[in-house]
């Protein structure tokens, strides 16, 4: 019945909405018909035609009133009223095109910056997993005393998978890693991004392949048996031109033949935020991809490199899952104290995982979001101020409307419709600006990801961001429209009708405007402080340098697994490469290193116990970062050996194991002793013995902003590593050496690709300077926009004030007031407002600084220079904005001004 009912009512509503004129005509016709009939009846009853007509009209009781009643019956008058208001608003906005344009641009900037920034926040925090029912997926993580987001080892994963009951499947995956890929055995291998996943990965996620099939559960049971690969959608498109016959074909991954069994759907680019794997391989194939041949991925409970996720059963609760996992972790701790002492486990939701404390990206985006909202606030207060001034010049119009019987609510609605129109235009402009900002982010793709792997900036304009932009527009319409609308409809009717411009009763009206100025000054001061602090923070990082000369260095990486070298061949290759490069013309020095400072591969973690040291009960070993280097590393990189010696050719694989530590490491573990000659044990107190032979100066390892950190070097000869980077120090332009390296490598093996060949200083600039500069530009732009808007707003309000007080000033001057007195009068108020605004702004600045320190730089203390620079600048600029109108006030000719009106 309900639906049937609508069948009748909806067409009627639409008709009165779109064919209102015709409906009105019919109304008229119907009533006229009735009147004529009535008149006929009257005439028949003996009345004259005129009398009959009059009688008919009397009974009807007012034709227009009836029509209005009938129109109201349509139930859409609120909508037609809105259209009337909108039409009126557009007309009145078109009368002041300059002002309208200014307001629209202001709002567009505010909304655009905010929604553009929101695209970051969205991609980093809110975007759900690209799978069906994403909210059922939980992240499982190991927790220790210093991390709540630890990975699991393969054995631990199996335990969780088999011994928990809260889930419809537990899955695991490795990080995306560099894999040598060739479409057939003859082609030269290229570096691609592969991810190892458990056999049930796609099934549990609910991802159906667009072609072929996904892994079977049994395909990750037996190590090395099932060499099958599932392609990522993007990889399939550009590498195989979306060829459907790819299923069943053989490809080579790190020199091993794999069969393509399927292609993941377009809707599933991957579960990570930044990484979009080219292909997926079963966990059981791990040995093919391991960088460390001494590791035993399948058995070693300490080899933790798996992310574990699980799908919660519909009837299980998070709390239950959490308890179950905690019990399991306790059991593991009892069973394997060697590996799991002090280790617990926790269940994290998607949101908890995305806002993990040890990740900086989302924190940046939150800070950006706060700053962007501040810009929007300044924009809104600006517009509110303008609308307020505008509304005051319309006092008479509003008074007339009120006098004619318009309800106050109806007038507020009219004025709000006007600001809504502005916000709609501003919102459209804002969406365009947001698109621009997202595009601008994307233009930094190659700067931020200097890698051959498929990583990308995930920020995009999607439905959520558009909805946010629309919501922001509506919000700003309300923010900047409500106060002026409420205030300007509170008019004293008598006064309002007498004069075009009256003061509002009491001081309430002024209070609102003063608050606007204070809010603007303080918010923009906060923005400027934040911008300044961020620029300074990044600059300090950049100036600090790395601790060794970055110029005249060429970098290029090799992975002999790409040409199927075994470990012995690999060792031989690096030995020959180093020897030949040493003798090559133009080469001052060569070095081989597993990872370069600020390198993308990340340094390996290193677990050890100082020999003879009694470990605390809850801790099995200490952790540090490490690098594998050859004997010329320190001299070529010019990292001074402070004490002891560097590696030598005599430190062969059969010689006693040795290591070099950095100064921080040495001071940390042997504060009062000489570290050289001390021993450490690998992994645990009964691990292999390693002698410390030298102490190197501490440099920056992972981040140009990092604090001094423990670090240890091992010789390549004692820790064979397949993927190494060659560093060459040149006399002149390092890129001139590229040809030399190419020739040497071609002689060794013509098929071996050189990866990431660059001048190191170039690489450094991108990593440490260009990337942060993106953030600096953003914050700087926000600060500037905020300041400009605040200055424009202040100027506008002061100018308006002066123009309103023209007569008063003229009278004062006619009575003999000095120019300076008038200047004081007008400026005094501005000074007070700016003063209050500055005070609040400084307080807010302190707040932001604390926030940034706690989240990003951790510099501690207060950056006085920031305030010394920013506060006077803002003060001078805002005072200037107040001075110009004030100065104009003093030049008013009294005779002219008094004639005003």
């Amino acid at each position: 019945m309900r639906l049937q009912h609508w069948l009748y009512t909806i067409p009627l509503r639409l008709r009165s909405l779109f064919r209102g004129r015709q409906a009105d005509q019919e109304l008229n016709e119907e009533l006229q018909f009735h009147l004529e009939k009535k008149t006929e009846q009257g005439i028949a009853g003996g009345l004259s035609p005129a009398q009959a007509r009059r009688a008919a009209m009397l009974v009807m009781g007012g034709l227009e009133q009836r029509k209005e009643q009938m129109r109201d019956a349509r139930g859409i008058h609120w909508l037609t009223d809105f259209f009337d208001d909108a039409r009126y608003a557009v007309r009145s906005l078109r009368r002041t095109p300059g002002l309208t344009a200014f307001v629209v641009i202001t709002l567009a900037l505010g909304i655009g910056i905010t929604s553009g920034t929101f695209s970051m926040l969205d991609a980093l925090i809110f975007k759900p997993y690209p799978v069906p029912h994403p909210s059922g997926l939980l992240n499982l993580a190991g927790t220790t005393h210093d991390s709540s987001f630890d990975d699991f080892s393969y054995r631990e994963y199996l335990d969780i998978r088999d011994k928990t009951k809260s889930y419809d499947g537990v899955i695991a995956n490795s990080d995306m890693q560099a894999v040598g890929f060739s479409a057939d055995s003859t082609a030269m291998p290229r570096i691609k991004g592969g991810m190892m996943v458990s056999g049930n990965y796609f099934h549990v996620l609910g991802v159906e392949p667009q072609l072929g099939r996904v892994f079977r559960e049994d395909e990750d049971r037996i190590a090395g048996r099932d060499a099958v690969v599932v392609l990522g959608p993007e990889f399939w498109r550009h590498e195989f031109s979306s060829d459907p016959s790819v299923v069943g074909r053989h490809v080579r991954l790190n020199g091993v033949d794999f069969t393509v069994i399927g292609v993941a759907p377009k809707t599933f680019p991957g579960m990570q935020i930044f990484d979009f794997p080219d292909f997926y391989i079963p966990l059981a194939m791990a040995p093919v991809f391991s960088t460390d041949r001494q590791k035993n991925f399948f058995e070693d409970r300490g080899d933790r490199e798996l992310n574990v996720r699980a799908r919660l059963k519909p009837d299980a609760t998070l709390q239950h899952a959490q308890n179950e996992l905690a019990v399991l972790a306790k059991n593991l701790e009892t069973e394997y104290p060697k590996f799991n002492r002090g280790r617990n486990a926790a269940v994290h939701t998607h949101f908890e995982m995305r806002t993990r404390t040890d990740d900086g990206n989302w924190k940046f985006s939150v800070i950006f979001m706060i700053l962007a909202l501040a810009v929007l606030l300044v924009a809104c207060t600006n517009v509110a101020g303008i609308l307020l001034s505008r509304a005051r010049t319309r006092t008479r119009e509003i008074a007339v409307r009120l006098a004619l019987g318009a309800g106050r609510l109806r007038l507020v609605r009219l004025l709000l419709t006007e600001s809504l129109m502005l916000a709609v235009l501003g919102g459209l402009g804002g969406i365009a600006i947001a698109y621009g900002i997202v595009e601008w982010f994307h233009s930094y793709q190659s700067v931020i990801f200097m890698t051959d792997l498929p990583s990308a900036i995930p920020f995009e304009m999607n439905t959520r961001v558009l909805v946010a932009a629309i919501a922001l527009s509506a919000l700003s319409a309300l923010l900047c429209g409500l106060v002026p609308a409420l205030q300007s409809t509170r008019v004293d009717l008598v006064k309002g009708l007498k004069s075009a411009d009256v003061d509002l009763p009491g001081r309430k009206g002024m209070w609102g405007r003063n608050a606007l100025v204070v809010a603007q000054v303080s918010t923009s001061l906060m923005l400027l402080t934040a911008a300044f602090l961020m620029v300074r923070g990044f600059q300090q990082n950049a100036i600090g340098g790395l601790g060794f000369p970055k110029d005249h260095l060429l970098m290029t990486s090799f992975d002999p697994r790409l040409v199927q070298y075994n470990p012995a061949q690999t060792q031989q290759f690096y030995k020959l490469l180093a020897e030949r490069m040493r003798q090559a013309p133009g080469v001052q020095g060569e070095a081989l290193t597993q990872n370069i400072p600020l390198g993308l591969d990340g340094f390996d973690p290193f677990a050890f116990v100082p020999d003879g040291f009694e470990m605390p009960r809850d801790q099995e070993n200490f952790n540090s970062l490490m690098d594998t280097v050859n004997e010329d590393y320190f001299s070529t990189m010019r990292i001074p050996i402070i004490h002891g010696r560097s590696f030598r050719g005599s430190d062969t694989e059969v010689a006693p194991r040795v290591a070099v530590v950095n100064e921080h490491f040495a001071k940390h573990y042997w504060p009062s002793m000489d570290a050289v000659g001390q021993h450490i044990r690998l992994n645990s107190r009964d691990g292999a013995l390693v002698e410390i032979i030298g102490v190197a100066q501490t440099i920056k390892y992972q981040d140009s902003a990092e604090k001094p950190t423990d670090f240890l070097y091992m010789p390549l000869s004692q820790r064979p590593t397949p993927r190494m980077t060659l560093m060459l120090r040149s006399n002149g332009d390092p890129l001139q050496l590229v040809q030399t390296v190419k020739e040497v490598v071609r002689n060794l093996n013509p098929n071996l690709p050189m990866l990431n060949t660059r001048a190191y200083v170039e690489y450094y600039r991108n990593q440490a300077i260009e990337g942060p500069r993106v953030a600096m530009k953003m914050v700087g732009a926000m600060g500037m926009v905020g300041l400009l808007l605040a200055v424009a707003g202040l100027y506008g309000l002061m100018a308006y004030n002066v123009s309103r007080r023209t007569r008063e000033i003229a009278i004062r001057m006619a009575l003999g007031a000095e120019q300076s007195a008038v200047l004081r009068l007008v400026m005094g108020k501005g000074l007070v407002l700016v003063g209050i605004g500055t005070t609040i702004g400084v307080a807010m600045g302190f707040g932001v600084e604390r926030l940034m320190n706690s989240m990003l730089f951790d510099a501690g203390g207060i950056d006085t220079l920031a305030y010394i620079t920013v506060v006077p600048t803002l003060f001078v600029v805002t005072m200037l904005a107040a001075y110009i109108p004030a100065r104009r006030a003093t030049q008013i000719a009294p005779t002219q001004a008094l004639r005003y009106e």
Partner: protein
Amino acid sequence: MSKPSDLLQGTLDLLLLKILALEPMNGWDISQRLKQISSDVLHVSDGSLYPALHKLEQQGWITAEWKPSENNRRAKFYSLTKPGRKHLEKETANWSRLSAAISHVVRLEEA
């Protein structure tokens, strides 16, 4: 003189629906019929008739159609819709209950 508002709230709607349930009619005929069947006891002014008809139409209980009337002038003819018919049944039942209850009360007072 009693005013048209003597009609109980909502009863006009019921009357109109009832009249239209018999056959489709235009506004003029409805006004004549009202007078005739209620023997002038229920006085509905022309002024309140049309807004009431429109409200019923907008609510979907009745629907309208332009058709030639007896002397070939175009007039708007109203007829009951299916939901309108159901609505009428319900309202009639309501009315019967209400009027029965009121009669009962009135008789009580007299006794």
